[in-house]
């Protein structure tokens, strides 16, 4: 007994006498290049300087796809990072890899940090939260689709530059006026699935996929071939035939055409704001995503894009404490407010939004509050976000079918039906593969 007590005492003394223990270092793999990479580095720096127990090392690992591949390779070889930034469409994939990740709620619990999910903006955090309320990943850089427009082009076409179109019929009218004034590309869109189908559905409070867009189960199936959706795609196809809507490619290829002044109106990410402010030679404005005024309940809120931070599994307890502390730091309203104003990404807590509003930022930078308003306003069960397996393939299928529609090879209904059929195959496969 005495020996044991002695030993215990000795151990306790050694622990107390030990010098400030080596910092727990954690690795954070991300895909932010350019100025955003600097933002990431500054986030880590801010955290590292604020305390001495933990150190976060950000590592740029290529694009979202490339860093996913790198993380998978690393995980299978036992060298995975602690934190991984994953784009929003990879959410279901990450959630299905249960053994590879640790939900944020659990991380915070293990890290001993009080965690109140209610401070997070529902429409933003909801995307990354399980139906039972458990937050799976921490929203990090979230954007939302907005309506960018070229004020100078509007003036030249005789449209009031301070009153952008808010409904789709108005967009068509404006496009016609722009074309009449000689504009070669009145309207285009980036991320056509995200803007014209996913956010379109949420904005009009209809489902993009069944089971509340996949939140309630893997037996979800696509639902974007309803008459409303067909009507919208048909409108766009007609606009395309008349040269009012010019397709500029998949992904965000169309962004460059807006910044260069080639296209006068663009539905794209709110995060484009920084590029536009810096590079565009014209006065630009931001409006809300257009909607159809005859649909009851529209507009609701839009679906976020961007990425979130996931905590990988299989790490030591001290490392999880570090991750929890870092996530806590990132959620701090002041830190959030600064980030939001610097990058244009959405604030993830309502308090950060309030701080920014109070500081007068939105008044000084008109248009920057559009994205926030679209998300903070309200959220319904149908507009909380989208959680589909094999989402990357589904988006590619949508791109392929839409291209056939814009090229005049298929009608809107044919395209949407084909996309639904092919997309459902992907969902079935995902369901089967993850039944366990």
């Amino acid at each position, binding site marked *: 007994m005495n020996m044991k007590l002695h030993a215990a005492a000795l151990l306790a003394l050694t622990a107390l006498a030990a010098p400030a223990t080596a910092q727990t270092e954690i690795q954070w793999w991300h895909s932010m290049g350019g100025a955003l*990479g600097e933002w990431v580095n500054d986030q880590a720096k801010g955290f590292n300087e604020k305390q001495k127990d933990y150190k976060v090392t950000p*590592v740029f690992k290529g694009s979202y796809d*490339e860093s996913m*591949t790198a993380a998978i390779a690393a995980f*299978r070889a036992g060298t995975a990072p602690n934190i991984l930034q994953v784009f929003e469409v990879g959410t279901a994939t990450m959630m299905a890899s249960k053994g590879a990740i640790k939900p944020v709620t659990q991380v915070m619990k293990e890290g001993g940090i009080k965690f109140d999910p209610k401070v997070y903006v529902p429409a933003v955090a909801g995307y990354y939260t399980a139906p039972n309320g458990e937050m799976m990943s921490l929203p990090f850089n979230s954007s939302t689709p907005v309506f960018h427009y070229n004020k100078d082009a509007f003036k030249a076409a005789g449209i009031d530059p301070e009153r952008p179109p808010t409904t789709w019929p108005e967009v068509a009218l404006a496009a016609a006026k722009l074309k009449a004034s000689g504009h070669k590309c009145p309207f285009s869109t980036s991320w056509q699935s995200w803007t014209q189908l996913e956010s379109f559905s949420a904005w009009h409070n209809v489902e993009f996929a069944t089971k509340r867009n996949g939140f309630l189960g893997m037996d979800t199936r696509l639902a974007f071939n309803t008459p409303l959706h067909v009507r919208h795609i048909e409108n766009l196809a007609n606009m395309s035939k008349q040269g009012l809507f010019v397709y500029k490619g998949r992904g965000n290829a169309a962004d460059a055409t807006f910044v*260069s002044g080639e296209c006068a109106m663009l539905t794209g*990410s709110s995060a*484009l704001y920084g590029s536009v402010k*810096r590079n565009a030679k014209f006065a630009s404005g931001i409006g809300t995503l257009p909607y159809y005024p005859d649909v009851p309940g529209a507009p609701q809120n839009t679906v976020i894009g961007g990425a979130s931070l996931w905590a990988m599994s299989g790490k030591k307890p001290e490392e999880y404490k570090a991750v929890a502390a870092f996530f806590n730091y990132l959620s701090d309203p002041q830190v959030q407010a600064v980030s939001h104003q610097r990058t244009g990404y959405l604030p993830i807590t309502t308090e950060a939004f309030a701080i920014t509003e109070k500081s007068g930022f939105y008044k000084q930078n008109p248009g920057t509050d559009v994205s926030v308003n679209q998300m903070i306003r309200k959220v319904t069960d149908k507009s909380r976000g989208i959680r589909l397996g094999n989402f990357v393939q589904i988006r590619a299928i949508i791109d392929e079918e839409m291209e056939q529609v814009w090229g005049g090879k298929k009608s809107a209904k044919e395209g949407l039906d084909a996309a639904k059929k092919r997309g459902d195959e992907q969902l079935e496969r995902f369901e089967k593969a993850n039944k366990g």
Partner: protein
Amino acid sequence: MVENRPAATALSHLVLMLGVLIIAFPVYITFIASTHTAEEIVQHVPMTLLPGNNMLESYKLALQGGQTEYGSKIAPVAPMLWVSLVTAMIISVCKIAISLLSAFAIVYFRFPFRNTVFWMIFVTLMLPVEVRILPTYKVVADLGMLNTYAGLTIPLIASATATFLFRQFFLTVPDELVEAARIDGAGPMRFFKDILLPLSTTSIAALFVIQFIYGWNQYLWPLLVTTSEDMYPVVMGIKRMITGGDAATEWNAVMATAILAMLPPALVVLLMQKWFVKGLVDTEK
């Protein structure tokens, strides 16, 4: 030139000039873009074909690194060029060395399973590295080679291009040379060193250029096996600056870095030209 045919020569020059214009046009555009500011590149579409005024600034930014007013931090290109240089040199030298030996063995010796060995080496061309990248990463990680030059290079010298080319070349070498060597009492390695190698200089030079550039332009593999920035090769640095959407890309810095990144390979091409001619001299077969 054997005889003087001015018309044919003029035609050759014309075709070559056209070829150069078409093939080298993208290089020209890259250079032009590096002499403008990022805003000019994005705003003027189509981009002008004339150089701009921003050349010094762009290249200073690329070489020394620094912060643009937009807030992007450009990493200096010199350390990355060094990593690329070492990687490319190791890959080309090692690949050529082991392939020379293998091709020599396969062509000039008769041993059991000779054909199998050739096809085993040759089949490495049939499954590109991207397809087997995850398990290859695991092997490299298990061997403790992450973040090392060994990890960056050794898996890339497994493929068979060089062995195949040398095999082709060795098969064209006349047998009389071997017989002559045998009569002189020279063993196989003497033959290899004194006769075969000097004959092969043209092929070696061509392969060196190709393998150097191949090693130099590696992106995906280094992305996977490095986590510390001081092991990033230059193409990774370039890709990192192309942000792909949510932030503005500093195109002038990207293009300036790309041009700088093309200088060492250009040097290699120029130097290897000498070896082409040299090979000519000894081929009085």
